[in-house]
């Protein structure tokens, strides 16, 4: 890794939501600040700046990461996804986003981007995720509005739709199977 000059500004190049992006930052600039104030992508939120709340979660090379604990210079050459990249096209919602809307899984919406990014990454990895697993993924985030239950419901519903199942009856068989899988995964 090259040594960076504290006083200098550095150009960082990476892929952002599928398109090439670059931003000029100091060595100490956090990824949250680079995204929000450098690139104008204000959908990634800053809730605690010490890695607990999860509001700033983005996907770096497909893996969820706290942008507030990541230096912007560290994502050189990486593939970044943020909440702005979740919609299939402007004005339309993706499956997970639409499930959140149907289930009233957000109120103020401040924590939502981070939760969407974690769930999006997890469901790509484990499309048959159980309720327990999804609850634990959501457990990595703080939400002060919803009491979490509608978020878990939205995640389960989105998972069922993504698997091509009827979302109106995802719970019975899907969850039981998922729970068994989940236990295996944890064992």
């Amino acid at each position, binding site marked *: 890794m090259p040594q960076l000059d504290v006083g200098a500004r550095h150009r960082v190049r990476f892929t952002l939501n599928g398109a090439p992006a670059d931003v000029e930052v*100091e060595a*100490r*600039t956090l990824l949250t*600040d680079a995204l*929000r104030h450098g690139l104008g*992508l*204000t*959908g*990634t*939120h*800053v*809730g*605690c*700046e*010490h890695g*607990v*709340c999860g*509001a700033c979660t983005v996907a770096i090379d497909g893996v969820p990461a706290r942008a507030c604990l990541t230096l912007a210079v560290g994502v050189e050459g990486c593939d970044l996804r*943020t*909440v*702005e990249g*979740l*919609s299939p096209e402007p*004005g339309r*919602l993706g499956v997970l*986003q639409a499930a*959140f*809307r*149907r289930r*009233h899984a*957000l*109120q*103020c*919406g*401040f*924590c*939502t*981007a981070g939760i*969407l990014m974690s769930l999006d990454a997890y469901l790509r990895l484990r499309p048959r995720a159980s309720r327990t697993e999804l*609850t*634990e993924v*959501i*457990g*990595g*985030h*703080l*939400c*002060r*509005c*919803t*009491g*979490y*239950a*509608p*978020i*878990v419901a939205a995640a389960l519903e989105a998972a069922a739709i993504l698997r091509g199942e009827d979302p109106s009856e995802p719970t019975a068989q899907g969850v039981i199977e998922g729970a068994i899988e989940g236990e295996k995964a944890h064992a």
Partner: protein
Amino acid sequence: MGIEHIPFVGQSVERVEDAGLLSGRGRYIDDLGTKPGTLHAAIVRSPHAHADIVAIDVVAALALPGVAAVVTGRDLLDITAGLVPAVRAAVDARAIAVDRVRYVGEPVAIVLGRDRYVAEDGCDLIEVEYRPRPAVVDPLAALEAGAPVLHEGVGANQVSDRSFRYGDPEAAFARARRTLVVTVRYPRNTGSPMETYGVVAEYDPTDDSYDVLANFQGPFSIHAVVSRALKVPGNRLRLRTPPDSGGSFGVKQGVAPYAVLMAAASRKAGRPVKWVEDRLEHLAASVSATNRITTLRAAFDDEGRVEALDWDQVEDCGAYLRAPEPATLYRMHGNMTGAYAIRNLRMRNRVVLTNKTPTGLVRGFGGPQVYYPLERLMQRIAVTLGLDPLAVIRRNLIPGDAFPYRTATGALYDSGNYQHALDVAARDGGLEDLVRRRAEARAAGRLYGIGYTAAVEPSVSNMGYITTVLTVAERANAGPKNGAQATATITLDPVGAVTVQVASVPQGQGHRTVLAQVVADVFGIALDQVRVMVDLDTAKDAWSIASGNYSSRFAAAVAGVAHQAAVRLREKLAAVAAAQLNVRADDLVFAGGRVGSRTNPDASLPFARVAATAHWSPGLLPDMDGAPIRETAFWTPPQLTAPDEADAVNSSLCHGFIFDFCGVEIDRITGKLRIDRYVTMHDCGRILHPGMVEGQVRGGFAQALGAAVYEELAYGEDGAFLSGTLADYLLPTATEMPELTVLHVESPSPFTPLGAKGVGEGNCMSTPVCLANAVADALGLDAIDLPLTPAKLAALAAGRDEPAPPAGLAGKGSPSRVSKPGDRTMRGEGSASVAAPPETVWAMLLDPEVLASVIPGAHGVRKRSDTHFTAEVTLGVGPVKGRYKADIRLSDLDAPRAATLAGTVTGALGNGGGSGRITLTPEGGGTRIGYAYEAAVGGKVAAVGGRLLDGAARVIIGGFFAALARRAGQSAGGRANAPGLLRRLLARLGISP
């Protein structure tokens, strides 16, 4: 006309807010651009709970490239005034400290830089010299004679003491067959919205006006407080709010002092100023709910029927009484008898100030502090009499046919049938099954308990309730205060589209959706033909002092007044259409996007055309009062009258009902609380949007669970703040949430336009005590205070005796000696061998040059006298690295055998003090140095938690002696007893030291 409008109200339609929020297109305060040249602020805050500011050295900060200005409290003295609270105590409640700090986190200086990073660098360069004073943290200790006084102008820490009497409490107590007392220490907690405070402010010297954008939530009575603090009339403070806000739960009312601070800083700097609070600042110094010590005595009969209550409440508002405090203490004044028909009351309300963060609005606002003792009392009465707690609750409920019901203290309960709600909850919530589960669990030897709570949830505050804190004479002097003006504006544009503007300042509750439902129903048009704007501009929009998002007033007041504005506009539009269609206005129906005759299907016009008439064809308008283009309605309920001469007050317009019950099990070994079932029954009147009501209940429950089990804003006895990160202040996550059964009955309010009542705060009032009652039932306890942490419950399960209250809540003279998370006292001992005789080591300990080389991170050790040294040290503890000034004194000198080292360190990040005894014992040709120390730290360092501190102390002290050993070894001719790595390295090279 044949087309019927199916009402949107009552349906869980998808929220109009959500598409933007789910796509990263929210517009929160930090997402809005700023004017070029805007400076970014960072705040230097007090590490001391109580201290004089001796000096503030800003030279180094100002010299830093990119820093434009530094502003201190003294700099703002001439252009600002204090923030005036409801009680005119001689407390100069400023937004920034002047000459003295009174709580950890109090602003001391503001650095304005070209970006936030530079501003924070500047903060590190500011040197503040403090002279610490004794701090007082416990509210009862603060009342004692001889307690440190925070505000000399007041002369004591008590700023208000009022007694009240309703009915004939003396007679009731005199004839009572039984009495019982509960004492509750309700702890501090807060709402912790995920978005912190933010302010962008600019001063315009050409007309002496301020433009302030802040994620403020109201009440807008505070606008008057802020403009007064900025010394401008209200029309020269343009206060704006962003379109979206990341939650508040009352807490964002507390951004007001920062609006003053940044506005004044902008004036000093001559440029716009932006400030976004960070999480550490938010936890330490935003807003806390009050902690309160309550003694509640009851007179009751053998059946558990309560005849009288005697309340003694000591409210702790922190270091300054800040508007609207002491409102927390008076918000519940009308419903101090809860859901019960109790006619005799005595009350004493005292307000004290302590060296803690000033208090303010937090969801539940005064409710948790009242219902906790009241519902613990009901449970205790039942246990004392050997009755079922539910039977005692039922026996005391207000009769179902008594509504509207005037309580002893003056509230007018609008509607309800509490007995019916209990019956439905017991049936649909499976109470019988729960009782069976308890019996089974207990038969198996497990600790299982059931808790109940009945509570009345007030909403739509009377703006006059807070004046109950004043005496009748003071109130007469000030003039009566009352009411709760709500407002909505509806505008029709030239293509007949509808825009609604309100001053409800939502913080995520979905006001835009509900208002679209309400207004679309009135006009009989599609939901998406109505657009709702909720960002407020006090210079251009309709508002009043009651505006804002608090006291659960939206559904009852704001949705109601929007309905009234829409109906008024519809009446005018009906006249317009009637003239064009040549039918009678009362024959017209608004449905399906058309305005048409009920009787003649051919006579109809598109709504949009009727709505656009006043723009394009004013000549077609019939005679009417004002054009049907824009309608602003104001509404205040007549029931909200000022407190009367007997201090009776209808403190809120609406009174919902909650009945909760739960079953919990406590692990005997770990003390972990498992919530087996939780059932919450609500009567919030007419439900406008079931999904949102469900969201309010579930969200409120989660916050209440946090307050009950996990959260506490904890303070050390010296006022050090101990829960400064989200790793110390624990918020519940998805994995902690139990199954929750939410039930409803609906008793529409006769006092609100739509029959709705508030529902947002109820569980914050009912749930903590419901869980506590269940724990008390499981463990057979008489007394239990929050939070119900595993450590506390494990001790109680083992000993059936509550351990000492947490630090900061302990009474004087009862310091906790048990080591626990958050404890900042570190103790340690150790020894090191040095290859030099005791005389040499002794000389080294007294030599500043040697000390400079062996104290970790030290630079600039100065010898002030033979036994007094000062130094600058750089230390890192966990994530917090900072520079400190050290002051070290030697005493009890016993050359060359022993000495006591006592010292203090102070710095922006914290402070500490401690002492240690060093002993030197000859050992072979060298010396064995023994040491034992005890140290305590405060400030930001303390807030990172005790777990890190112990380790850090060991490393630093160990480093000191290792360095001393090395140094002594050199001076003794290279025969160092080299520690660790060096010794291993030498051994590998075949060199034996």
